[in-house]
């Protein structure tokens, strides 16, 4: 009974929040291979934790927090091992099927890649997933004021990069 419940939660989470988890992981790692690793480990963590959530909102927030932490671990390990980052433009199966779409967004991803990780996370959670600063603070483990500062500076950085691109 308990195992069935855990499986049901896992299936529900994967089906409902899989794309969001993957996109957040991809936006942080810029690697499909690493995003897949984060994706699988995140849901594995959900399954092994046996957590039961009140609603989907709490479930998604928990998943996002795990993704953020796992991406952080990846960066930390890469730094310790002095790994060369994966090629951000590495193709995956879907991109091979539609290579022209990715090319159109190269300029945009160039800007995103110039943001530091702390800015990328808050911008993604705020502008893509629609979280408030207080919610983001809970997910990334920072104070709301810090999140607001990162949002402000992230936007300023984006604006600066956009202006530099225009000129």
């Amino acid at each position, binding site marked *: 009974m308990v195992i069935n419940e855990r*499986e049901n939660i*896992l*299936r529900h989470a*994967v*089906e409902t929040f*899989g*794309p969001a988890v*993957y*996109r957040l992981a*991809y*936006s942080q790692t810029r690697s*499909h291979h690493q*995003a*897949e690793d984060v*994706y*699988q*480990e995140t*849901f*594995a*963590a959900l*399954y*092994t934790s046996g957590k039961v959530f009140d609603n989907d909102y709490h479930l998604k927030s928990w998943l996002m927090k795990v993704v953020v932490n*796992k991406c952080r*671990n990846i960066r930390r*390990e890469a730094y*310790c*091992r002095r790994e060369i980052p994966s090629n951000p433009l590495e193709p*995956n*199966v*879907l991109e091979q099927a*539609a290579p022209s*779409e*990715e090319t159109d*967004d190269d300029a*945009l*991803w160039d*800007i*995103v890649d110039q943001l530091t990780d702390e800015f990328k996370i808050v*911008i*993604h959670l705020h*502008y*893509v997933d629609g979280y408030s*600063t207080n919610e983001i603070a809970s997910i990334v483990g920072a104070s709301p*004021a810090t999140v*607001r*500062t990162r*949002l*402000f500076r992230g*936007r300023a950085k*984006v*604006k600066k990069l*956009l202006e530099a691109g225009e000129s």
Partner: protein
Amino acid sequence: MNDFFDDYRRALSKIDHDPSLPDKTIRGIIAGDIQPAKASSNRIRPTRSFAVVSGLAACLVLAIGLGVLLPALPSYLEQPAYPQADAEEIRLDITKLAFAPELEFEASHDKAIIETNVDFSCSNAGGKPFTIKIEGSGVTIQPYGLEVNLDGPWADHLVFGSDSETKCLMKIECLANEDDMAIIFLEKKGSVVGAEARVMQSLLDVLSTTKIVIESDDVDSSVYQLSPQPTSFDDIVRLIHLNEPIKVDLVKVG
């Protein structure tokens, strides 16, 4: 700017995983083939040479630190734990305020671009005397001399009843945009322990009553004040950090 985030959302919506990934993940997790990585397995252990180099570096830093601190220790011990001031006294010491050298002022003096850094620190313990100090670094703007007058009733609001020591650094920046408005935001620059809200409120009060005096050989001296005056620190921070900056005019008051 908003177009960029729309494009970002659109670009992300194109990013999708391998269609077989969800099923593969579910099956792998249930079968036990996929498990969350253990933190201990990822730990990077330092090599012996790294440990030796780190140890030597730490010893060097310690030696330098002791060399600097030990000569200053006797004079430090002679200082009282708290400033010698009456319990009711609040001493304000504004040494310098910083303005970016590239700032410009219109000849009409009806608008200004101002950037101000104010380091703000205060401490209090068990109701003992304390000092509030505001300081920064200043640059004179040519051809105008610029002075900020922080005198005002706001000093009465700097009351700290906490038993714990409170220290913080605040940054106040006033930036005018091309719409002749001043954009103000306060930013916490360091760790704040206790009484943060009161510190922030006090700084808000500083802003509210700040008068900006512009003196020049070319034109008459003028005094400006922020208008409308900020009413809520939370409003300012929230609005500004969400890119809806509060816009405040500098109004000539004298």
